[in-house]
């Protein structure tokens, strides 16, 4: 049985302009000790789906799922108190903005110790000892001196290390890292990523790594799930995904990787993820897809099988060719030099 199993998770926000489906029937599993990457551009519902799992969404969010179980516990319908026994203990999360994610009024030592106190009931001396251990574990030099530091005295990279130490305090079985390096300097990004992967191995925990960076995926993950506009559009082991992407969106993300670029300009997918007001009918990717047909615009695609990476597409790609497409050759030629 996988550690984490989510089936058809849907999150709807009540906004002043009506309801908005930020996550649309997303399914996801993660085994013990596995690294799962969730990729997709900004606005794809990556954060919202994981916040829903953690129970951290505001009250305007309505969360439904056919299944949402963690370590054998059904998370749906848990009371706040029951959920708080899991969240922060067995399931922890770190965020994109480490600097603003730490409370400016409390010391590093206090903020890490809090989880130890609440979940493990450690006394002051034990907390201090364990906190020093944790700071050491995440590679913070002179951990004892850091206990009394306030967040504004730390750099972004240091703050993220502290966040990681805090998340690992109770030896969680699952760590969710939501774009943990996006806000950091490029040189620091690699360090933090390496740290996460090392810790994941050492501690044997599962890691859900949210990112919009395919490069990060290639370096770290075992399995990848691609999300677009709130939907899961493809899922594959990392090698397969890079060799043979089945969804046109995945293919476009890969084509946009700097090292795969043929021209000097950094390529990117034209257009943006549709928000609340510009959701197209039919396939949500159709306004930006190279292979769009009438059928794509009119009919919502079905999910393909495992062979085609569970792609949510009418014409899943196989070795770069859209299967069942009415005019594959014309597209393939056009593909050489995208507009």
């Amino acid at each position: 049985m996988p550690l984490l199993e989510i089936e058809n998770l849907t999150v709807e926000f009540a906004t002043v302009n009506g309801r908005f489906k930020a996550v649309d029937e997303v399914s996801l599993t993660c085994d013990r000790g596995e690294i799962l990457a969730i990729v997709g551009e900004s606005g794809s519902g990556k954060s919202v789906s994981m916040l829903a799992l953690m129970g951290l969404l505001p009250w305007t969010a309505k969360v439904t799922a056919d299944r949402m179980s963690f370590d054998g516990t059904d998370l749906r319908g848990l009371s706040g108190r029951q959920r708080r026994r899991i969240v922060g203990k067995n399931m922890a999360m770190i965020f994109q903005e480490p600097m603003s994610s730490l409370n400016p009024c409390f010391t590093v030592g206090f903020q890490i110790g809090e989880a130890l106190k609440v979940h493990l009931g450690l006394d002051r001396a034990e907390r201090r000892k364990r906190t020093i251990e944790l700071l050491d574990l995440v590679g913070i030099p002179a951990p004892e001196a850091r206990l009394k530091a306030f967040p504004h005295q730390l750099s972004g990279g240091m703050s993220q290390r502290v966040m990681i130490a805090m998340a690992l305090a109770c030896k969680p079985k699952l760590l969710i890292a939501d774009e943990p390096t996006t806000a950091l300097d490029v040189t620091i990004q690699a360090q933090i990523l390496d740290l996460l992967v090392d810790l994941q191995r050492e501690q044997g925990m599962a890691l859900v790594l949210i990112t919009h960076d395919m490069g990060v995926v290639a370096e770290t993950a075992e399995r990848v799930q691609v999300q677009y506009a709130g939907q899961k559009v493809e899922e594959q082991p990392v090698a397969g995904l890079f060799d043979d992407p089945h969804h046109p969106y995945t293919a476009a993300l890969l084509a946009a990787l700097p090292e795969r670029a043929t021209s000097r300009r950094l390529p990117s997918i034209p257009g943006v993820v549709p928000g609340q007001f510009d959701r197209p009918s039919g396939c949500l990717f159709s306004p930006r897809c190279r292979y769009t047909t009438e059928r794509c615009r009119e009919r919502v695609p079905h999910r393909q099988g495992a062979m085609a990476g569970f792609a949510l597409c009418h014409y899943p790609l196989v070795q770069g060719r859209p299967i069942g497409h009415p005019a594959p050759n014309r597209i393939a030629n056009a593909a050489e030099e995208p507009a």
Partner: protein
Amino acid sequence: MLAFLLRRVLLLIPTFIGVTLAAFFFIRLLPGDPILLLAGERGITPERYAELATRLGFDRPLYEQYFAYLGNLLSGDLGVSFSTKRPVWDEFFTLFPATLELSLAAIIFAVVLGIPAGVIAAVKRGKAPDHLVMSTALVGYSMPIFWWALLLIIVFSGWLQWTPVSGRISLLYFFPPVTGFMLIDSLISGQRGAFNSAVQHLILPTIVLGTIPLAVIARQTRSAMLEVLGEDYIRTARAKGLSPLRVVGGHALRNALIPVITTIGLQVGVLLAGAILTETIFSWPGIGKWMIDSISRRDYQAVQGGLVMIAIVVMIVNLTVDLLYGLINPRIRHRR
């Protein structure tokens, strides 16, 4: 932090000079001659008038009088009140504890009710408790002090007969002032019922004086909490699995208090202004009532001295607030 405080202290100098100027000219701009007022209905002979004017220095040009006043102030001399013939300094310290007691009671009342009310309103944003707190605060804020005091007196003193209407303690009790705080002195005196009487006398003036600060603090707490509750670190606190009490009462409130403390500090000025009216309504023998009486007697020395002392108190409070602000906000504490 030290530099921060030093800057604050230096800023007080121009403020202080401004206050002396205002106090000096304000009372002189009011029509009415102090010597004639002092003489009252008996009148005064021109010779005696001239003699008094010379003795009080009124015959000298204004700017000379001002510099004499400033010079005396700097050497710690507030002069002697015309009307009571007592040193202004003594008058002030005899009456100040009464005002301080009332103001402290009012600010404690405002803080103890205002902060929880603001927190509840923020947590229950848009729901019934929020509307209740916000509309009550609006009413409290816009209610004229005089009218509000009368209303309370009619209800609690008139109909219900729960509270007395004037003074600090019932005339049945007498004991020498030790601290000047009636609550403490009445306890020290050991007289039965004295403390209760002092408390009863304090209740209505406290509510009247504390209402506006209460409304302001509740509103400020609510808006500060709303802002803080949306911060990333609140999400982190919840992600740790902390209880709502710890998240709201610990992580959020601690940050929200930073602007609230500034507001409380600013309310001290408002409070002293309100004390003047409140003390007059409730015949509370404090600085406020003394100032009103002195102004009506054109007691130049008392008004000049009293206003400056009040200003000094406000400055001290504001400095204390700045210090407190630094203590609660590590970003300021570590600033060089």
